[in-house]
């Protein structure tokens, strides 16, 4: 047994022990950081989903209604058309309740109050779309009042109802009887994605339709402007411009612009597009232009990074066989860089999709009750007041009715799903078109 200068390899010396301990500690720190991050994300998702998942299901009251051609004519010629239709609904509901002996001693007004104020216009739309319905009896699924909906989602109880002037315990009891009778049903809430926003009193009718369209229109503007401008600017800066102090200044400023708080772009948009160019306030066009300004630096930076990552030997090879600078860029460099450019663009778009602050400044926080005329065929494109997904979330969180908290969380889930789809698309495109050499 000979002991060498280094001692036995089977026992750790002090230095090695210390090093190993340091390494272990570092791993623990890293693991801890990841656990904290994942826990925070999980908590965020759980709270949003717990609050918002229920917004995708909505309570409807389903009962038969009869309407005659004369009644339709009378309703259409009255001053308050939806009011007239409401009367017909109430007649139908009363008939149904008496027939099944569900009303018992509940006041009639309470029974009528269980139907959403939105029902009259829903019914009218239905009649206008189906003129054949006149003179027949048909089953109607009408939105239940937000408080009744809340009762089935656990927001409202008999105790809270006693203190709430918008709902009475008697209504809840009637609701239970209706549910036992099968007239009160929960369905998937398609209206949440198609309805426009609704007033404070009708959370059950509020939807994201206008917000989703507004966001899509804005994304279209951003994509059509930011992508070509950003890519052209990057190609010029990266491949053609001589490197001198001017390009250095531009480069530093692009990096700075990417870090500018988004609300500053809102102020800029307000000054340029609304005050100076006099575009319509709150329109998706202005929103899109502001978001374009905001997204451009992101797209330029990611495009330049992907152009930089193409090995110079490819450019040399193209120039070496006598390609012009432009041919070498468009035939070789750009196709190789395109997965990176696409990824950067989609991530920039996703960022723009979730942006709220600049839109508040250009007035996109407006309450939009109807589909803007811009979204119909005969109006000028992009010109009318609209809203956007993140602004709709902001808007709903401002309202007092807890039913809107559920709506806001539902809207956040919708927004997150859009973002998830976009990011997944970015990853998919990168994997698909990425070329290795």
């Amino acid at each position, binding site marked *: 047994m000979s002991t060498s200068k280094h001692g036995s390899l089977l026992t750790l010396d002090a230095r090695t022990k210390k090093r190993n301990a340091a390494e272990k500690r570092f791993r623990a720190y890293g693991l801890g950081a990841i656990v904290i991050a994942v826990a925070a994300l999980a908590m965020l998702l759980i709270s949003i989903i717990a609050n918002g998942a229920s917004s995708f299901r909505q309570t409807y009251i389903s009962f038969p209604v009869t309407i005659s051609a004369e009644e339709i004519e009378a309703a259409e010629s009255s001053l308050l058309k939806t009011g007239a239709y409401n009367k017909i609904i109430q007649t139908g509901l009363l008939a149904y309740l008496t027939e099944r002996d569900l009303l018992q001693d509940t006041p009639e007004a309470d029974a009528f109050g269980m139907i959403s104020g939105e029902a009259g216009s829903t019914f009218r739309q239905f009649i206008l779309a189906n003129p054949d319905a006149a003179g027949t009896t048909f089953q109607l699924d009408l939105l239940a009042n937000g408080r009744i909906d809340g009762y089935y989602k656990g927001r409202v109880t008999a105790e809270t109802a006693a203190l709430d002037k918008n709902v009475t315990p008697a209504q809840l009891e009637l609701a239970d009887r209706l549910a036992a009778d099968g007239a009160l049903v929960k369905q998937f809430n398609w209206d949440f994605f198609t309805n426009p926003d609704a007033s404070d009193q009708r959370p059950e009718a509020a939807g994201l339709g206008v917000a989703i369209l507004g966001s899509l229109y804005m994304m279209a503007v951003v994509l059509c402007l930011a992508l070509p401008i950003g890519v052209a600017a990057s190609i010029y800066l990266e491949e053609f411009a001589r490197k001198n102090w001017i390009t250095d200044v531009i480069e530093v400023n692009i990096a700075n612009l990417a870090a500018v708080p988004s609300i500053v772009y809102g102020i800029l948009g307000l000054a340029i597009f609304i005050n100076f160019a006099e575009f319509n306030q709150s329109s998706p066009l202005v929103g899109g232009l502001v978001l374009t300004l905001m997204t451009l630096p992101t797209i330029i930076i990611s495009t330049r990074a992907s152009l930089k990552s193409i090995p110079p030997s*490819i450019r*040399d090879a193209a120039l*070496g*066989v*006598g*390609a*012009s600078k432009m041919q070498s860029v468009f035939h*070789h460099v750009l196709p190789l860089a395109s997965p990176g450019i696409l990824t950067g663009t989609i991530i920039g778009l996703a960022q723009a999709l979730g942006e709220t602050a600049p839109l508040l400044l250009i007035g996109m926080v407006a309450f939009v009750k109807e589909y803007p005329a811009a979204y119909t065929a005969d109006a000028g494109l992009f010109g009318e007041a609209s809203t956007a997904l993140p602004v709709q979330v902001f808007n709903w969180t401002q309202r007092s009715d807890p039913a809107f908290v559920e709506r806001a969380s539902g809207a956040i889930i919708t927004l997150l799903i859009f973002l998830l789809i976009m990011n997944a698309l970015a990853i998919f495109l990168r994997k698909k078109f990425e070329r290795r*050499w």
Partner: protein
Amino acid sequence: MTDYKISAKGVQVYYGDNHAIKDVDVQIEDKTVTAFIGPSGCGKSTFLRTLNRMNDTIDICRVVGDIRIDGEDIYDPAVDPVQLRAKVGMVFQKPNPFPKSIYDNVAYGPKIHGLARNKADLDEIVEKSLRKAALWNEAKDRLDAPGTGLSGGQQQRLCIARAIATAPEVLLMDEPCSALDPIATAQVEELIDELRQSYSVVIVTHSMQQAARVSQRTAFFHLGNLVEYGETDKIFTNPEDPRTESYISGRIG
């Protein structure tokens, strides 16, 4: 005088303030292989790249002097470097095929220069170029396979095929074998010897044995100066300058 393909006089190259090539005069004959040798950083690659103006892509690079190909000043403002590079092809140190098919790699040059009127023409050019580059037998069954999937030596021969597909008159090779194993090197060297029949080949190399094997004339560069230029046999057996002698015998470089 007229039988020189390339004639350079008083060439100076600057990278910013760095004087990389100092007053070089070289005359390169047609249908010969001329080797540029010298220690690293001596300017031989830089000088090679002045011959097809690849240095233009480097902003801070400045070339002074007179370089003529077939008697025409290639730095004349009327000369478009794109046209020049079609006439003076280049093969680089590291094989750099485009990440495209073998066929597209070779066909790219003829396509952008309009050398082929139709698909059949193009096929012919591709086949001829690949044959000349001694790659046809290995590649004919996989023309659609990516060029980057070939072995290093095959890639370099593909690059040579790509360079000769544009029908150049001069072929510049910048250490074409430095990334290759001895067998691939031997194949490329053999190829260079064949190419001499059609082109004037200028090759930069680190390997003196390679210069001795493939070239007829050799230029020795040292610290930006052209120290000695002459018949390869004479440079290697009986150099005039003591620096050349030191380099060849392994004392410097």
